[in-house]
């Protein structure tokens, strides 16, 4: 038999382990939007329960109870397995009712972090109850040996894979063909829909949590005879399992299971290849497989995870704009200096650790809090710099400020690579990819004795201008001098990150975080902003890593493991990942930091420490989805708001002129669209549309529902692939990316406005200023004044009424000084009076020299406002001309009559 085939078969057992966990991950995600990092811990619960029942004992994994209760009999396989699975189901239900139901409206990251908390608590409980020694479990499936030539395979491996596949097929069939499955799928599509049709989404979700917990428990039981049963035994399988779940798009069971099997089998094949080809690395190849598969699937398919339609949708916490840096900055710095001198020994070490971790948390604030890219690899990136610092300082003798900067720059380069997949994918898949990348870097490099000594890399320094800044001199450790160096860097990084938030780049990051499409619509180069965010964050993390290296004067992989990184991300999230203060608090809460040492000294928690931490994590997420610092920011914001309300709103000034040159109505053709065609699959949405727009006019685009109006605007703006040509002021825009078209002078608003609710009006509009490209942006105040927004300039957009929000989105498009403004339903959601007023504003915009193309259903507005109207039907322009001509055009009437209920709208 072919060796390759044999080794693929040998990988079945590993694959089945991943497949089983992936199965549970998918069921959970599909029904409640939780990427459950606690899945492996749930499998462990099933396995422990089962193992003890077989020995005639009931394990009580709860504090203050006896560890086990003796049963009169040893249970057989079926009773033990069924009871264990039932316990898992009960715990699953409990988790839903007690935790994840409360988090239904929380952002997906929040739910994921809560599941990390669950994992920590369960693992801690098992440690406390059972200890770290492995509990042996007898084989469950038949273990005869099958022989092919000189290779032998034990049958239980193959049976295990078969059982998992059967379970997945049965589950998939149940979801497909039963009423319950139908209801589940319906609720997964839209919770609102479920409410409307009278089904309680709560019940469905609860039931599904029981199912996913049972699947995990059953998987755990089946894994137990193969993998030694220890409290952390299964945790490490989460990465390949996540990869398998992604292969199933977190929604299909069978592909996820097949993916899991494939990962295991390919790993086995890689083992064979590594033995045949000595140039392959001896370490890390196994970790590479899940990563490569995820990248292949995500990047090639480039579809986001199906997000669930929940009634309330929240983003990450608000990213409050720092008001004054000087006051709090000086106070915090003085506190830091005083503490550095006041504390000594272990306490000063804890303070320094906190400060260093704060820097790494701040890197998460930039990449995740600001730019919305969930990177679980920040600690790994810190490690990259930390591991490079050794050779840089000892082999090459590069002096202090240069060596850490070089190391941080190298981390930046790696960070940009880590960020590359994020260009094609969004949301939690980014998290999974960064996690998998972290695992690979750790295995290929940090673990690898080819590059790193078993004792770790020694680091020399730091010294600056003859000043000895070593963390340790003789028995003096940690030295104040080093502590102050760290403090200075923390201050610089914190101020830098705060400044970033208020900068134009920061606004662009928040814009990307809020909505990539609308950010592109505002002229933001999404690709560039994401990469810059990853670069800045990696640089910061790298700095943190070098400081950690200097602090310990030696780095080993233990400081930078993926699991520690995951924990640090959880800490940063809980502290408040969207603000500088959150990043700093994250450092205080981090492992080895002030809080950890304080609790250890004060309460001597011992093995309970992990459990308490996990419970604290979960409670914080439920109480304060915006993190520990959230309520403080909210209180500050309320204070400011009450002050704002005292200011009386100023009336809109329509006499403001934005441009000096006189309008030239009916001038030359500024926007010309010819033969534009858009197809979705086999459906033709826009079918060779032509459009000519003259400078200084308002052109209306009307047509029945589904005529392709928005699609045409998208095609003009480059948001959807199309054929045909688009020319703006003589320049051919065909083939350009959306943000380039915006910068060329093509402003755009969206039907749903796509504003950034966290940002103030000023900031929202400011994001649009990048759209001016090489041209000068318009004056912000003048633009706001023109649209009557001056009085709310400092308010977050989320607080404004619908009409005002429309104007903000127009202002955002306008400030980039566009030649042509494309408005998609600017009067949507406005009442007649507001709509008329909007018309006036649009006219004054036109009079200021901006050409406007708009879509709207308000015929009154369109007919009265527009200089020219084009009518679209079935993706073609069927008529063009002045409003008077359009009103009487029979073709137009026919198009509208043909549509459902719009006849009267054409001939008012």
């Amino acid at each position: 038999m072919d060796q390759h085939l044999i080794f693929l078969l040998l990988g079945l057992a590993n694959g089945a382990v991943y497949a089983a966990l992936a199965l549970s991950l998918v069921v959970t995600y599909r029904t409640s939007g939780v990427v459950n990092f606690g899945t492996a811990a749930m499998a462990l619960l099933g396995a422990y329960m089962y193992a003890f029942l077989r020995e005639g004992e009931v394990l009580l994994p709860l504090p203050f109870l006896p560890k086990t209760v003796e049963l009169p009999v040893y249970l057989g396989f079926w009773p033990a397995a069924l009871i264990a699975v039932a316990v898992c189901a009960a715990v699953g239900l409990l988790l839903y009712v007690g935790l994840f139901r409360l988090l239904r409206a929380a952002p997906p990251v929040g739910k994921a972090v809560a599941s990390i908390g669950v994992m920590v608590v369960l693992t801690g409980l098992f440690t406390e109850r059972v200890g770290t020694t492995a509990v042996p479990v007898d084989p469950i499936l038949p273990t005869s040996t099958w022989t092919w030539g000189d290779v032998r395979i034990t049958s239980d491996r193959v049976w295990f894979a078969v059982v998992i596949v059967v379970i997945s097929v049965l589950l998939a069939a149940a979801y497909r063909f039963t009423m319950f499955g139908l209801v589940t799928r319906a609720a997964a599509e839209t919770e609102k829909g479920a409410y409307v049709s009278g089904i309680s989404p709560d019940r469905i979700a609860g039931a599904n949590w029981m199912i996913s917990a049972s699947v995990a428990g059953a998987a755990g039981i089946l894994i137990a005879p193969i993998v030694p049963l220890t409290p952390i035994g299964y945790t490490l399988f989460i990465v390949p399992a996540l990869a398998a779940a992604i292969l199933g798009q977190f929604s299909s069971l069978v592909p996820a299971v097949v993916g899991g099997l494939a990962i295991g089998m390919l790993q086995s094949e890689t083992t064979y290849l590594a033995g045949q080809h000595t140039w392959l690395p001896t370490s890390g190849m196994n970790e590479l497989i899940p990563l490569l598969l995820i990248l292949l699937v995500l990047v090639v398919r480039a579809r986001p995870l199906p997000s669930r339609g929940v009634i309330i949708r929240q983003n990450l916490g608000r990213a409050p704009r720092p008001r004054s840096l000087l006051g709090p900055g000086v106070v915090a710095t003085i506190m830091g200096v005083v503490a550095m001198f006041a504390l000594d020994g272990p306490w000063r070490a804890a303070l320094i650790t906190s400060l260093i971790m704060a820097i790494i948390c701040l890197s998460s604030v930039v990449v995740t809090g600001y730019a919305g890219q969930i990177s679980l690899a920040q600690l790994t990136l810190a490690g990259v710099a930390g591991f490079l610092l050794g050779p840089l300082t000892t082999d090459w003798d590069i002096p202090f400020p240069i060596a850490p900067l070089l190391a941080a720059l190298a981390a930046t380069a790696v960070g940009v690579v880590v960020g590359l997949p994020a260009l094609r994918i969004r949301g939690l898949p980014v998290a999974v990819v960064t996690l998998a990348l972290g695992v690979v870097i750790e295995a290929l490099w940090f673990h690898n004795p080819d590059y790193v000594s078993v004792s770790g890399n020694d680091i020399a320094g730091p010294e600056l201008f003859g000043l000895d800044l070593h963390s340790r001199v003789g028995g003096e450790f940690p030295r104040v001098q080093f502590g102050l160096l760290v403090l200075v860097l923390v201050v610089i990084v914190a101020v830098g990150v705060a400044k970033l938030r208020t900068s134009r780049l920061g606004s662009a990051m928040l814009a990307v975080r809020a909505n990539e499409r609308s950010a592109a619509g505002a002229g933001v180069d999404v690709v560039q902003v994401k990469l810059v965010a990853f670069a800045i964050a990696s640089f910061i993390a790298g700095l943190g890593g070098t400081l950690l290296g200097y602090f310990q004067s030696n780095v080993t992989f233990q400081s930078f493991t993926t699991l520690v990184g995951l924990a640090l991300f959880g800490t940063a999230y809980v502290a408040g990942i969207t603000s500088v203060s959150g990043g700093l608090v994250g450092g205080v809460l981090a492992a080895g930091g002030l809080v950890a040492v304080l609790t250890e000294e004060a309460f001597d928690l011992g093995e309970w420490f992990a459990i308490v931490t996990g419970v604290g994590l979960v409670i914080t997420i439920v109480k304060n989805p915006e993190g520990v610092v959230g309520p403080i920011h909210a209180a500050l914001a309320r204070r400011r708001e009450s002050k704002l309300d005292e200011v009386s709103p100023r009336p809109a000034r329509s006499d403001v002129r934005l441009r000096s040159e006189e309008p030239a109505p009916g001038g030359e053709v500024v926007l010309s669209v010819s033969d534009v065609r858009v197809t979705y699959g086999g459906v033709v949405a826009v079918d060779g549309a032509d459009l000519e727009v003259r400078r200084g006019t308002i052109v209306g685009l009307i047509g029945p529902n589904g005529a392709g109006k928005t699609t045409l605007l998208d095609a003009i703006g480059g948001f959807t692939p199309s054929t045909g040509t688009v020319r703006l002021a003589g320049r051919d825009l065909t083939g350009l990316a959306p943000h380039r078209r915006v910068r060329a002078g093509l402003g755009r608003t969206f039907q749903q406005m796509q504003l950034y609710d966290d940002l103030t009006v000023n900031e929202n509009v400011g994001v649009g200023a990048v759209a001016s490209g090489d041209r000068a942006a318009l004056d912000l105040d003048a633009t706001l004044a023109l649209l009557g927004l001056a009085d709310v300039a400092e308010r977050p957009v989320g607080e404004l009424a619908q009409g005002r929000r429309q104007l903000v989105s127009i202002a955002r498009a306008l400030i980039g000084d566009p030649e042509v403004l494309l408005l998609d339903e600017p009067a949507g959601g406005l009442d007649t009076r507001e709509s008329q007023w909007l018309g006036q504003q649009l006219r004054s915009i036109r009079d200021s020299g901006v050409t406007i193309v708009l879509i709207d259903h308000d015929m009154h507005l369109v007919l009265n406002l527009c200089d020219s109207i084009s009518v679209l039907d079935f993706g073609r322009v069927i008529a063009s001309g002045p409003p008077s001509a359009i009103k009487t055009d029979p073709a137009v009437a026919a198009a509208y009559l043909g549509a459902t209920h719009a006849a009267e709208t054409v001939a008012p």
Partner: protein
Amino acid sequence: MHRTRQSALVVLVALTVLGAACTSKDDDVSSGSDGPATTIDPEILGSPDEADGEPITIGVVTDGRTDAIDNTQVATGAQAAVDYANDYLGGINGHVVEIETCETGQTPSGATTCAVEMIDKDVDAVLVGVLGQDAAVFNGLAGSGIPYFIYATAAQDILLKPGAFALSNPIAGFGAGVRLATENDVDRVAMAVIDVPAASGPVAQIATPLFEDAGITLDLVNVSPQVADMTPQIQEALSQGAEQFELIGTEQFIASGLKALRQAQFDGNVVSIVSDISEEIAATVPGGFEGVLAYSATTSDPDDPDVQLQNAVMAEYASDEDNASLAAIGYITVMAFIAALTGATDAVDAASITAALSAMPEPIPLPMGGGITFQCGTPPAPFLPNVCVTNILQTALGEDGQPTDFEFIDVSEFMQFG
């Protein structure tokens, strides 16, 4: 969540790679909690000789108890040894021995903090059994002049930098493997190694040249701790035609590897780096551990007088339940430290103790060493300056994974390669 899980593996591997986890405590030698199975003769403790001189303070560092490993018993064993020495051995040359303990929590910052604490408390020596953060604690002590006396380590810093003394030869197990292969005319050996630096590092750097020097080809396969089923790796290593197979990892790792070897009906010598497999784990391997060879740095033979003394000390100064193999490691470390200084009457503080340890005049028996001797300052090879021991014991495991007998193996001739 604030724990380094993988560092636990380092502890386990430090225990095992070095053939250190040896001092099995089965029911014959230590009375279980369900009754006095054995009676310990108090005579064994000898005649009282209370210490009353100026105290010498030793620091004992463990990782504490976390969800990955619990090695606090090292401190329990050390404490029992200290109490016994103060009552019966006259402490260290008459000086009362005092003990300061610290737990790293398995984090590098915790390790650094422990080092700081040891410096703050002005201990005269730091004693460590096995520690996940052993290098971090050692490096944390750098410059303090405090000697670092460790039972077993694979960390290069500890093995090479001045100020450390190691009671296990990290490559003796490899040397014994070479010797075994040579004796059986085996010219191809395979080795499955758990892929953490503490194991894969020494194997790659030392085992390969050691075997090659003896004209033996070594096929290495690193197995990630994330691998659920290691059959593919074992099959891969076997496919090259090895006639002797060594398993380097934790006892679970070894059991999994042995299972795969049994499936493949491998009939050569199998060497386990762990010499006491728990019976439950051994039972998961069809056919058990019968015939598997193992190396150990110390003995657990119930007839050995040192083992009997240790049992008596633990019975007197700790509870029966505390008498686990990790406790024995703590006990051995303290007893060896005391033995090394006995007679060196001017060794009273960090500097003088370092000096005395660096120049032990002659080899003395290692407590529970089953015939192995140690002499710090006289290393087995120039590239192992801090190692105090050369040789190792070999044992054949029974079906239940427990050692049957211990045989002294002289590996000194294999220490001079390269």
